[in-house]
């Protein structure tokens, strides 16, 4: 048992943290956000150059050969920087589907451009009626001649507005919430019949509603039994989001401590007041408990036993959701008025943490699922 990073992992952490320090301070982030896509193409190219876009892919396929721990390291640094780029959407989600559902030929065709930063993918899965139910897919795929055609409405496609290609989940058989009958299909974002409406999310990132009217598509892998791969990729995304949240919480806590030490009222630093000290400590306890569960999530993200993996991710998401909410609310409160302004970084961390809680199952959803499964200790 150890919590040490390998030499390579340490170097990875240092290089990503350095990039965040040099290129992603609050003013620079505002500039990145003003770009037409809502994020920085220049930084994206930088990620490619550093090998980050190839992080989870096998070395034989041109990737970095990193596992969940490497992803945790990168996501934690991204959480501190509060990045705007489509890393989760393109590398973790779409990239994860390529790893777990696509054929070797398909990977060979798609990965080089993705890893080089020339092509971005998104994952269009959620639908208006589905909330957090992963099997709830009403979009359909039908065979027409030698091609697949997709019809349906996809919601909240993370960074779906700037992706060149979209992986769409669609049903080839079965009822709305059946586990069987779901397939994954690759669609060109500018193909005839694709309607896209991009918009900003509360945390300053981007998403899109995507409508598909008889859109021509290529199947990824064998259609019909894609749900386990989708669940696996969502579990990996949850682990990644937990790490991102820990990075954001750590940075927000540090920001709050700085404020407590420098803000003077009643003739002294407000951090001298015990009532505020104890609240800062409670935030710290939340941060450390969340960090422990993000580590647990990373170490369980590669677990082959789907049931054990789901329980672990549910537990981690519950802890991160609760800790992030408590720490975020307290950070705003301890900052007072300045915490309420768009011009100060604290509120942006708070908003990202809040959106992370709502992604891929909120706290209550995961707690209910974990309770239903009999808990964590078996």
């Amino acid at each position, binding site marked *: 048992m150890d919590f*040490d990073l390998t030499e390579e992992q340490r170097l990875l952490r240092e290089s990503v943290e350095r990039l965040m320090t040099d290129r992603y301070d609050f003013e620079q982030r505002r500039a990145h956000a003003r770009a037409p896509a809502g994020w920085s193409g220049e930084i994206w190219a930088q990620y490619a150059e550093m090998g980050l876009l190839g992080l989870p892919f096998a070395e034989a396929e041109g990737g970095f050969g990193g596992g969940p*721990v490497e992803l945790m390291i990168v996501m934690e640094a991204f959480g501190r920087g509060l990045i705007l780029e489509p890393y989760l959407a393109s590398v973790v989600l779409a990239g994860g589907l390529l790893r777990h559902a696509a054929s070797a030929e398909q990977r060979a065709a798609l990965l080089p451009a993705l890893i080089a930063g020339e092509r971005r993918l998104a994952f269009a899965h959620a639908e208006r009626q589905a909330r957090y139910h992963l099997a709830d897919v009403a979009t359909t795929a039908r065979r027409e001649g030698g091609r697949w055609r997709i019809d349906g409405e996809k919601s909240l496609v993370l960074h779906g507005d700037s992706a060149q290609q979209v992986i769409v989940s669609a049903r080839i058989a079965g009822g709305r919430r059946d586990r069987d009958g779901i397939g994954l299909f690759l669609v060109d974002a500018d193909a005839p019949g694709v309607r896209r409406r991009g918009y900003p999310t509360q945390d300053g990132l981007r998403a899109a509603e995507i409508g598909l009217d008889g859109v021509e598509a290529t199947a990824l892998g064998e259609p019909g039994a894609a749900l386990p791969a989708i669940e696996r990729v969502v579990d990996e995304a949850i682990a990644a989001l937990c790490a991102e949240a820990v990075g954001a919480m750590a940075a927000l806590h540090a920001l709050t401590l700085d404020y407590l030490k420098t803000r003077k009222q009643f003739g002294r630093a407000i951090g001298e007041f015990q009532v505020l000290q104890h609240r800062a*400590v409670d935030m710290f306890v939340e941060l450390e408990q969340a960090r*422990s569960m993000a580590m647990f999530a990373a170490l369980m993200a590669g677990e082959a036993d789907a049931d054990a993996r789901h329980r672990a991710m549910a537990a981690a998401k*519950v802890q991160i959701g609760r800790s992030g909410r408590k720490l975020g609310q307290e950070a705003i409160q301890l900052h007072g008025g300045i915490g309420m302004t768009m011009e100060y970084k604290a509120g942006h961390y708070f908003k990202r943490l809040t959106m992370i809680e709502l992604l891929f199952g909120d706290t209550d959803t995961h*707690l209910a699922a974990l309770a239903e499964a009999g808990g964590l200790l078996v």
Partner: protein
Amino acid sequence: MDLSFTSDEIAFRDEARRFFRTEIPEAIRARAAAGEHLAREDIVTCQRLLNARGWAVPHWPREWGGRDWTPVQVYLYQDEMQRACVPPPLPFNTSMVGPVIAEFGSEAQKQHFLPKIANLDIWFCQGFSEPGAGSDLASLRTSARREGDHYIVDGQKTWTTLAQYADWIFCLVRTDPAAKKQEGISFLLIDMKTPGITVRPIVTIDGGREVNEVFFDNVRVPVENLVGAENRGWDYAKFLLGNERVGIARIGTSKERIARIKRLAAMEQDGERPILEDRRFREKLALLEVELKALEITQLRVVANERGRARGKPDPASSILKIKGSEIQQATTELLMQVVGPYALPYQSEPEAGSNEPPLGPEFAASAAPTYFNWRKISIYGGSNEIQRGIIAKAILGL
């Protein structure tokens, strides 16, 4: 990064598990699991079995019975002990006065006391808190005045756990009333049979007698019972309290208790279905399991960090273990009481030996409410959770 144990560590864990579950009497472990008060004899029996195995004082220096275990081994030993509901070696002996004597005591004190402390031939109690000195321990007033070859001790200690069983008491006493408050304190060992000592029980809200007041009236203590140097007692006390943090989260105890709650909640019916099938109850339990898992990993992180830390200098992060560990343990007692439900109401004193009186309600009901009441203490003792927050604020957050 890896959460798994090495094959040697797993072998050690299995050995500990087998020993605790086969060599420590089942009856004692069952009483501990049910939350009943243990008799003096039970605690003595267990500690002597552990000592015979060489496992009563593994964290002591090697020449006095220590095992030089890695932090991981210490963790596994405690975790398995807690999960098997084995009463731990008396902390006043093995975690408190023993390490202080081993570190700061005279050779004669080591020879005389350490083997007896390890084997519980001498039972020590702790004379630190006073009516006016709780969290602000250094303001203690019990005085020791030098008179020839003796100190004359006058004053009062309180919250003295199990003083009714104790042969000796280790005390912080004021030897220099003129000095700054931390600098006039000494560490004395006092035989409880010395004339002038009176022990008076304090009944706690659960109805139990665990703690006492101890009064000292003109008590004559030979000077050779001073540990270390006069007026340096505060340093020794800090060293002692540093050792106290080890294992304080009691993850194993909470795991065992959650398993017990699940067993009982699967048996107890609410109408047509077991309590365990109630959605709200299950979610409360699941949330507790999440927090416990997080704390377990936090504890492992603290354990991993212990490599290279000086003895008696705890990682301030261990204050997290005290805060969250006590909150989780307390929450388990609430859930257990919830399972018992209305049958938590009757106050039932522990049955006398040979009593034929049937218990009121299910047999596990009697201790539910008393345990809940009693366990409110764990966020108060060992440095209250507010004191722990103060430690984190100062030592980690720099506030």
